């Protein structure tokens, strides 16, 4: 675990409790959207924490609540259209119910987000430099000249060639990889202590993805920030994340150190993800092992274990508990730091003895 670096400037709001707990704490977060079809239960009872200097990877299928939960951390949900419960604390500051001005101070300063689509963050009608300058001056009282120098410095830092010239470009004059870099430059201009990257490389080619992921890692080392990386790609998680949180149907279903979870997975959905992905090492004569069916509707989530309609391991659980009883997110046989949501008694033995070879090929 990393400790809080005392040499860093104090967060905007820092109550005394900030020293005891991790930089970001999410506790029993529930996010629901009332719609004309009914209540969308997008995120339910989600808890996690991220320390400064650490990377948490959040993985799960589309619609599993990854973006909705992260947007809640930035206070981006419209209170009129959503219901939020639980607690989100950034450096001890409660986010849920916080005033608009508190949130504005936090966003882009202590906390920044990068997205799959740079157009979410950068406007096509203003020059890239203009927008970075704006973001910087919003939180720092500096001259225009100083802010432009800062923008050029940031573009240089993220690897944009000829930053003095490109700072005057518009987004459409940048290639896909350069747009992503420009967005990262803007997100990092105020040295945020928490960076949330929501599928930052999904639309990019692998060689560019590798450049961007390297950049995020370098920045993190330099600034000692906490990073959340959201992806559907377990490979990205394996390379980048200290901890991994697997989400299914709006809930955490497995959570622990990445190496531990990937080598000793304890939850059938995680087994399913690992069995579904093709890879560049295993025996190609063996078929992939898909998860049957499709993810459930969050308007009407399944009873019991949310994964039960697709789970092929229910015969390892006595009776029909999978259908009737929600498994709690609890430590399995391998210790306190590895949590899983499943009724199976001894998933470790089952995985290592019967499944590992088939799944990891």
């Amino acid at each position, binding site marked *: 675990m990393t400790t809080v670096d005392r040499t860093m400037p104090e967060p905007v709001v820092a109550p005394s409790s900030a020293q005891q707990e991790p930089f970001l704490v999410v506790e029993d977060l529930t996010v629901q959207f009332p719609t004309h079809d009914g209540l969308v239960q997008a995120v339910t009872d989600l808890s996690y924490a991220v320390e400064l200097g650490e990377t948490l990877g959040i993985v799960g299928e589309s619609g599993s609540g990854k973006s909705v939960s992260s947007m809640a951390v930035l206070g981006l949900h419209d209170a009129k259209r959503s219901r939020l419960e639980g607690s989100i604390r950034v450096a001890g500051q409660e986010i849920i119910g916080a005033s608009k001005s508190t949130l504005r101070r936090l966003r882009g300063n202590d906390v920044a987000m990068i997205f799959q689509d740079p157009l979410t963050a950068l406007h096509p009608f203003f020059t890239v430099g203009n927008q970075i300058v704006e973001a910087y001056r919003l939180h720092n009282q500096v001259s225009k000249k100083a802010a432009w120098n800062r923008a050029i410095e940031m573009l240089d830092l993220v690897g944009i060639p000829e930053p003095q010239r490109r700072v005057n470009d518009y987004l459409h004059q940048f290639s896909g990889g350069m747009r992503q870099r420009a967005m990262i430059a803007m997100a990092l201009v105020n040295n945020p202590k928490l960076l949330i990257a929501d599928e930052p490389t999904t639309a990019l080619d692998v060689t560019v993805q590798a450049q961007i992921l390297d950049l995020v890692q370098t920045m993190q080392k330099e600034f000692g920030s906490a990073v959340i990386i959201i992806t559907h790609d377990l490979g990205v998680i394996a390379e980048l994340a200290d901890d991994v949180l697997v989400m299914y149907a709006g809930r955490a279903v497995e959570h622990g150190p*990445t190496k531990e979870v990937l080598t000793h997975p304890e939850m059938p959905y995680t087994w399913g993800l690992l069995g579904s992905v*093709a890879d560049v090492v295993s025996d190609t004569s063996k078929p992939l092992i898909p998860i049957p069916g499709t993810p459930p509707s969050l308007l009407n989530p399944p009873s019991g274990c949310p994964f039960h309609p697709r789970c092929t391991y229910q015969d390892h659980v006595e009776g029909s508990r999978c259908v009737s009883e929600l498994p709690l997110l609890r430590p399995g046989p391998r210790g306190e730091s590895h949590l899983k949501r499943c009724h199976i008694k001894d998933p470790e033995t089952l995985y290592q003895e019967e499944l590992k070879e088939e799944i990891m090929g």
Partner: protein
Amino acid sequence: MSEHVQTSNGHTPLLEVTDLVKHFPVKSTGVVRRTIGQVQALDGVSFTLEKGQALGLVGESGCGKTTTGRVITRLYDPTSGSMKFEGTEIGQLSGRQMMPYRREIQLIFQDPYSSLNPRHTVGKIVGTPLEVHNIVPKKQMIPKVQELLEVVGLNPEHYNRYPSEFSGGQRQRIGIARALALRPKLIVADEPVSALDVSIQAQVINLLQDLQREFGIAFLFIAHDLAIVRHFCPEVAVMYLGKIVEIGSRDQIYNTPHHPYTQALLSASPDVKQAAIGGRRERIRLEGDVPSPINPPSGCRFRTRCWKAQDVCAEKEPPLYEVGGRNVACHFAEPLQVVQVPVVSEGATAVSPT
């Protein structure tokens, strides 16, 4: 240049593509739209595909994969070069002459959302090719469509539903049923699972493999995902800026890649299982972006990003040399030597063997 094509032994491959070129004109803006350049989307591509086999095309966006698929299905006319289907040159056939071959060569698209007409029922979507080609009498249309839906794992009772009533994976199955309707000998699958979640990808890949075995269909399988291509295709071609830079067997390409671009591509792809067993390759980082296909670099098109480039690379275009069993277009083709790789990060793999 086309060492890869072997017809001298009297045997006719299902598809034989030689020096295929496709250029798109670039027009000036203004009242008189003059042609001011050419996008060299495909520039001399050659390969062969045997009956029932699968050839994978990999490479980053813009390298010409989709164009290859669209020229082969004759959605685009080739600029030059030859395409022989069972020995017949089909590159220059007129619409009518092409008709029988359209039956034999079908296309599956990437986007299961936009490739199906939202106003047509599944029955109409899957049945239309049968009708156009007069395959089954009207009375037998519904049973035939239902049979096809069943083959691809959809509920045959759902033939009256619209695409919007299906999930992404199910829509891709509808596209597959439509492609299967005419019992083609060749399916060009252009990123058939890229838009789907991994658990659904595996369902669709398994379905395609079952169909390939059952009906002996050959696949030109296009994807940017190296792992999926390795899983599906015993033979793989790697493309860069409109050219094939390396083509060979799955093991040749993935275990001992010889082209620097193939090596870089492989080392940049995060791979969970490789990471989980601790066998991560050294990471090579390419600088910059792919150059414009309107004005590609002289000589070897990869040279502007290649750490091995010498003067000869700018002067002379490397042909496909046979090295180590595969064909590779590089003046300095050889297996990866870790010592010469310049940009190696420390392999930040979070996972090591246990």
